[in-house]
Each structure stands twice: as structure tokens, then as C-alpha cells.
């Protein structure tokens, strides 16, 4: 995982311009991804690796005093995870980043994520 804490800021109207932790890069190793290993007839080695990394980014946002604000450009295949499972807000497509979907956490959403709601 690679995060940035300086170059980007919030785009949601209610927190526009405020600092956030931007996830530039996050992934689990192929052998830890069920969807890749299952068709090969092999078990994944470890579960929940990506979620732990994502949790670390949220916790860093609190440590930086960004109150849990977080942003990322989701790949098309990952949008469901960040919106439905993590509870991020889809803000809109970014024409400057391959038209990927910009998703954002408000402090309330970050708290809910850590609380498991």
C-alpha cells in the first residue's frame, strides 16, 4: 500500500478542500485473493490482507488528525467493495485519472467502518 497525505484534498461538498489520506496504491498478493486462487483449485494463503491495509490507512488518517477522511480512485472491479462494503461515498468519475471513480470517507463513515457497522 502507498498513501499520500499532502498532494490531494477532499472533494465532497461538505468537506471540500479539507486534508485527507489518499490511497495511491493498495493490493493483496495474488495468492491471498480467493477469486484468483479458487479457479486454480488452490486455497488462498491468508484472508483479509487488503482489509487490514485499508484499516491502516483509516487509522493513519486519525493519527494525522484528518479525522478519518480518506480518498481513492477505485478500479471498476473494486467499486462494489469500497462503496457497498466499506461505506465510502462515490463522488464522481475523474477525467484526470483514467475516468476512475473517486470515492471518499467522511469522519462519520470512517468511524462506522472501524466500528464494523
Amino acid at each position, binding site marked *: 500500500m502507498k498513501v499520500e497525505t499532502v498532494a490531494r484534498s477532499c472533494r465532497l461538498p461538505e468537506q471540500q478542500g479539507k486534508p485527507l489520506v489518499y490511497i495511491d*496504491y*493498495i*493490493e493483496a498478493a495474488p495468492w491471498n485473493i480467493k477469486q*484468483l*486462487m479458487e479457479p486454480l483449485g488452490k486455497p*488462498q494463503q491468508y484472508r483479509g490482507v487488503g*482489509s487490514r491495509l485499508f484499516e491502516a490507512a483509516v487509522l493513519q488518517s486519525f493519527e494525522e488528525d484528518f479525522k478519518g477522511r480518506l480518498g481513492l480512485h477505485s*478500479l471498476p*472491479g473494486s467499486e462494489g*467493495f469500497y462503496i457497498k462494503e466499506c461505506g465510502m461515498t462515490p463522488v464522481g468519475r475523474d477525467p484526470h485519472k483514467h475516468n476512475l471513480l473517486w470515492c471518499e470517507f467522511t469522519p462519520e463513515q470512517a468511524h462506522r467502518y472501524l466500528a464494523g457497522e
Partner: protein
Amino acid sequence: MKFSTNPKWLERRADQEDRHFISVGGLISTLDPTCQTELPSTQNVETTKTVFVRLLQLARRERRMSLEELAEKADIDLAVLVKIETDEAFEPDLRTVHQLAAVLDLPPKKLMVLAGLLHMKDAGLQQASVRFAARSEPIGNVSPEEHAALEEYVKFLNEQ
């Protein structure tokens, strides 16, 4: 930084992650199901496995690395590496191929295709692979012709 130690939270998050791809950038974005990859058909696996082994051998020899050195740098078991180079029926796992690609500076996704772990609908790759296999020998020193064949093939893999 205080991570959750609640096993129910962890289980739930792991379950959620198992249903999705979570990547933002990186290698896995190239393996995203929205990309044009699928499981390999048995028809092409034999050809690509020959090319996979030949490519690994030439790339290793080009760098004047012994099997032991490559195994150590790639952090894989020497016995597995020997098996890969001597037994085309042997099926390496994803981590091994990923590590080899990193050490030998080869495109990981293409190497997974050649190893028979993924299939890509790409007639160009098939033709280039057969041409490469025909122009290279698995043993001995790397000849100028083999060097040229290796360079041309790796360039083709990186360009796609």
C-alpha cells in the same frame, strides 16, 4: 496505530474482501476480471510452458546467474526452481512466478500466461512465443542469436 482485535470484525471484513477485488493500481489491476484474461485452455498450455521454461533459462543465463543464485534472490525453494527448469509438466504457483518475474525483470502477467496460470486471447503472443522457442536453445552459453531473440521477445512482452 491500534488495529482491531475483534475476531468478528476481522471475519466480516475478510468475508467482504473475498467477494471483491480491492485493488487500487498495482499488479492485480492487470488481473482484474474486467480485463481480458481467463483461465488457460489446455490447447495452448503445452506451447506456452515450453516458452516459459526457455524464457526463464535464457533470462537467467543472460544475467549469468546460477540456479542457486536465482532461487535465493527470488526467495523460492531451489528444488522448485530445478523442477520448473527440468519438468515442463510441473505447475509453479502464482507467488513463485511473481517472484521470478521481479528478479528477472519480466512482465509478471505475461509470465503467468506463459506458465499456464492465465490465458490471454492474443494471437500475437502465441506467434511471438513460438518464434522465440524456435530461435533459442535451452542449454549452453547464450549466443548472439539467442541474445537477439531474447531481447526481441522481452521487448514484445513489455510492449503489449
